[in-house]
């Protein structure tokens, strides 16, 4: 189980995260942020594997990824 958080006010809606997400769970939101861009968001967070490909591809360092590790 992983959680991806976007700093929505920093996102420029370039969609590069969407192009690399292997689970295809990132979309651009319908609303716009203060800069006038449609920010990226994850729709089905439970499908996220926490691979952080989106965060590595993001040119604006908008994304943070936290993964829950299984208890040993």
């Amino acid at each position, binding site marked *: 189980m992983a959680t991806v958080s976007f700093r929505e006010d*920093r996102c420029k*809606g370039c969609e590069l995260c969407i192009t690399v997400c292997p689970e295809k769970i990132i979309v651009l939101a319908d609303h716009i942020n203060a800069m006038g861009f449609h920010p990226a968001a994850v729709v089905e967070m439970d499908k996220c594997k926490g*691979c952080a490909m989106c965060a590595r591809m993001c040119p604006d360092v908008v994304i943070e990824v936290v993964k829950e590790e299984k208890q040993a």
Partner: protein
Amino acid sequence: MAKVMFKRPAALTDKQFHYCPGCTHGIIHRLVAEVIDEMGIRDHTVGVCPVGCSVFAYDYFNMDMFQAAHGRAPAVATGIKRTLPDRMVFTYQGDGDLASIGTAEIVHAAARGEKITTVFVNNAVYGMTGGQMAPTTLPGQKTTTTPKGREKEAAGLPVKISEMLSTLDGAVYVARVSVHDPKHITQAKKAIRKAFEVQQAGLGFSLVEVLSTCPTNWGLSPKESLKWLADNMLPYYPLGVYKEPAEVK
């Protein structure tokens, strides 16, 4: 237990990048910052910024930064390194800065074997000034000053910086990488790390050329730009390590 898989590196300030949507400058900034964090060298690293789109990089890197005149970053970095030899000194330069007005500075910094590291961002166009032809513009590529595409007879052919500098004895580590997908981003980071390690070991001049996109001046979407880079720039600018000292292999 929650494990942070990815977060903003401490070597970047919290200031928002001014770059256009989808511009891969941001990725390259982040890679340099991650390497500096991982090597634990932030308190004794000095960066030198160019003129061009990345002119404000001094606001983005969370360490001592200098701003050089157009193309002169390697000369300024030489001064810093020779005065403060215990510092890690890097320049961050675009192709308009390094491969055009700054050609003399970069060639001679490399020839002298200055113990500095250069991160050279090549996006085949002048970004900040409005998409004019750069020395690195591909044959046939349309820019605002080559509206019919770059013609060999009138404008010559691109300067291949990595190949050229790797012929100099003073340049000990020269590599060309790209940031058009996550796999190549990981490879790019490794190359940047090696370049810094070469400097740390005092072996000589190191340069990493990073192929980058310019969606705005290429007239493409950010996603199309990644494809354009892979389809057009990779064949002309082959990726790889052009020179590597045995000490860091």
